[in-house]
């Protein structure tokens, strides 16, 4: 401890002169985490380049150019966050939380409507969707509140408080309406509470309440004439149980995505891919991009992408265990859960085993807000990793 302070205060004249890598902090970063994130966005750009050439008349690289810009911006953002001590966010938790709630509320006022839902602000160069960034903000703020909560109130009071704090922005997002993202918020809330040590019995009660609520929303509410979900939302949630041949049905999309992926077989159909090239699969550059990968590059390509996600999430979970403090543990746990939930629900939806919820595939799906937010989340993980490494260095180097 003493040595560290001395070095900081007054550098030794013959001390080790750090090289360029050391100055950039690269040795303290998680290389595999950075690699998996960069590889995924690169794969995304490559796929978009092959699959969306004819989507925007006159500009064959419309999606590629933009996704590349988001990727570069994301990597820069990730790096900047890496160099910031994430613990600052704990101090800013109230401000972060307020910003989160205000920004997702503002879309009701200033947002522009797309397909019946207000989710984004129209900015001059791209449309910004605050709820995407909000996922990271929610993790940062909620983890801070959970640390606070460790000191006061009974167990039940704390559980209810966390739930309310997490579900308030989730409800706002749900009203936009954006069912998928609000489910991600829910998953984040539960994960942070889980890592934060909320009792198993409480989770059991929450689980039971969830089942009752789902039944009420899907069965009872429509029956008594006050449906909570919009018709298309309910249709999407339940359609994976009944594939359909009508192009207007949600079940049709899912069926076509399944056919697309299956038809890729082991090595893919490359440019002879028809399902995703000829509009049989909708939203091929966003929600259903995994179907494009499955059809074009077959089991090899799809399994490679899944493996990169496995690597990403494994590194995130590893960072949970490395964190130098409890706040870092909670934040890393929340981000790991966020990534796992999105990957499983999106890929599962492509494979026909999960409902269609409009959750993007992190780093693969086209979209600036999602790519940036995911890179920022990875940046927070990197920060936790770096702080842990620095503190270890401080402790063990001497």
């Amino acid at each position, binding site marked *: 401890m003493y040595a560290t302070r001395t070095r900081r205060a007054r550098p030794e004249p013959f001390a080790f002169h750090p090289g360029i890598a050391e100055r950039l902090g690269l040795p303290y970063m998680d290389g595999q985490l950075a690699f998996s994130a960069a590889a995924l966005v690169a794969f995304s750009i490559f796929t978009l380049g092959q699959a969306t050439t004819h989507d925007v008349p006159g500009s064959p690289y419309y999606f590629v150019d933009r996704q590349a810009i988001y990727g570069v911006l994301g990597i820069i953002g990730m790096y900047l966050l890496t160099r910031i001590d994430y613990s600052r966010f704990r101090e800013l938790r109230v401000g972060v939380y307020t910003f989160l709630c205000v920004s997702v509320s503002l879309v009701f006022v200033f947002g522009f409507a797309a397909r019946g839902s207000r989710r984004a602000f129209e900015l001059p160069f791209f449309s910004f969707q605050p709820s995407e960034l909000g996922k990271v903000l929610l993790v940062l703020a909620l983890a801070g509140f959970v640390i606070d909560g460790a000191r006061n109130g009974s167990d039940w009071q704390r559980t209810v408080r966390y739930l309310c704090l997490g579900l308030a922005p989730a409800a706002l997002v749900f009203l936009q309406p954006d069912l998928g993202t609000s489910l991600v918020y829910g998953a984040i809330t539960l994960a942070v509470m889980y890592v934060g040590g909320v009792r198993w019995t409480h989770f059991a009660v929450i689980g039971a309440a969830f089942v009752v609520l789902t039944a009420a929303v899907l069965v009872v509410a429509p029956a008594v004439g006050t449906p909570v979900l919009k018709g298309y939302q309910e249709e999407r949630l339940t359609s994976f149980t009944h594939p359909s041949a009508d192009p207007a049905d949600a079940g049709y999309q899912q069926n076509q995505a399944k056919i697309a992926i299956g038809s890729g077989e082991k090595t893919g159909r490359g440019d002879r891919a028809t399902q995703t090239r000829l*509009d049989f699969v909708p939203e091929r550059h966003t929600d259903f991009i995994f179907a494009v990968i499955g059809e074009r590059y077959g089991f090899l390509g799809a399994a490679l992408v899944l493996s990169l996600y496995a690597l990403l999430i494994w590194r995130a979970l590893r960072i949970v265990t490395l964190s130098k403090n409890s706040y870092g543990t909670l934040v890393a746990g929340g981000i790991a859960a966020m990534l796992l939930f999105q990957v499983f629900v999106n890929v599962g939806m492509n494979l026909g085993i999960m409902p269609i919820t409009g959750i993007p595939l992190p780093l693969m799906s086209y979209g600036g807000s999602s790519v940036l937010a995911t890179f920022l989340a990875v940046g927070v993980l990197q920060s936790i990793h770096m702080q842990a490494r620095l503190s270890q260095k401080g402790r063990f180097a001497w």
Partner: protein
Amino acid sequence: MYLRSDERGPAMNNRLALRIALFGGFAVVLFGILFFRLWLLQVLDGEKYLAEAKNNRTRSFRTSAPRGEILDRNGKLLVANRTSLALQVNPRKLPEDPAERRAELAKLAELTHSTLRRVRRTMHEELKLAPAAPVTLRNDVGHYLVFYLQENQERFPGVEVQRVFVRAYPGGTLGAHILGSVSEINEEQLKEARYKGLVPGDEIGQSGVEDTYDRYLRGRPGLTRIQVDALGEPTPNGRLVSKPPAPGDNLKLTIDQDVQEAGEAAMAERGLPGGFITMDVHTGEILGLGSFPTFEPSLFARPALTQAQVDATYNNPAAPLTDRAIAGLYPTGSTFKLITALAALESGNLQLDEAIEDPGVLVVGGQEFKNAGEAANGTVSLVTALEVSSDVFFYTLGLRMWDSGELQHWAHALGIGRPTGIDLPGAEEGLLPSQHWRNQLYKEGETDRPWSAGDNIQLATGQGDLQTNPLQMAIAYATLANGGTVVTPHIGLQVDDARGRVLKEFDPKPRRHIKIDPEYRAAILEGLHDAAQNGAGTSCDVFCAFPIPVAGKTGTAQRPPHADQSWYGVLAPYPNPRIVTFVTMEEGGFGAESAAPAARKILEAYFAKELAHDASTEEEESEG
């Protein structure tokens, strides 16, 4: 709570480690599910999904090929094609709004003289067979309607007009029974081997030579396979296969249009149900074949018949669709005597110079068999018996052969009561009554008595249980005329391609040969010649003034409860006939009354050139 927020260093303790381990385990399970599902879809079931994907993205359109033309032996057009405009609806381009959609369909129904319900049902049925393909609402729409729709295109989104080929019959009803009809293939036919490769909506010949020679006439439909996107819209450069339609080959028939016209006109003039056939006795080529009443073959070129048309064809008790020349089942009356005479001579039951006493009645076992009109002809030889049509003479021959089966043997050899091999569908085998046949029926309790001499006496004069038709009789006459060759009657002559090159000639082998003594043949032909053109002959009234020598026999068949049926069979020219003509008319009375004049008209058409030549030489002579 196990969190201690202000502690530095790895914030791990045992309880947290457990939770993180469970979290990690949960993640492993989720990834396991995804990998397994991916493996299932792509590796295990990949082929199935690949097939589905390929099926998804292509649409095939068939362009119908015009059927080949049908010509008579001299190249005169009997069946041609005309293009017709078909009104189609593309369901994908109809308005999405149900009310607008309904309004448009209702308007279309009105324009096509249909109802909204019928239109919807048609669309529903067609879309089940071929999803996303345009539905044909009505074939053969008028030009005025097409112009109207084109001018008001924006009011009828999704309505298209397609050019299709429809059969045209320049001769109207001419040859209706031989030509047959064309219509869409039905579900049972799709399963047949001969229609392999056809799809619902393709047209095939359903009867007549359109059916028999369908594989030459049909042609090959063009096929365009295009790649489509999810909306069924063609993709740019998405043309995968493009095969132009190949028109069908032309079929030339043995029919002589002039003979055919004369026959049909003669039948129509008398207005009685019946049939006629004119055939080359050496080759079996059919020059004319028809049945009355007849029908408009063009009726079947249209998709839907009106109720009145259905009643006039299918539900008509006169059965206009039945080809009586080949599917009729009648006793023949005295025209059968030629067969009886040949059987008796060849089996030794009659000598050429033998004379038989004809007192006008033959009594056998207490039963009287009388001559027609109860005439007594005295002592008659074979030639005279044929000339005056002495029934008692032939009753006697029938009695002589009543249990020997010799009459049946010769009738059978000449083709009575057995398949003829004609290249037309729907021909009937008929029935040649025999001892074995009736005794079998008697054993089974189907009849009240066994075979008796009376049965054979009836058969000898073409009465009783005999069931045959002009076709079989013509073959029998032809066999005698050509000296023993049982020809295969046929209507197909040759197949030409569109440029007139001969692709195939039909010259079916004779069914069989039988040995006929030339003396017997000469005697019988002489008897028939006298019957037609000698003063006492039964049909002298009709043929004595005919300049070409012929050999013909009348027949008056008893067919209770109907009035007598008129028959006439004639071989011309005598003594070396080239053609045989047979005519029968239900309820036509005595043979010379109805059938013989019709036969004469047919011969006049066939010998038109000779007759014109004769007439001009006569004129020259009288001038000289």
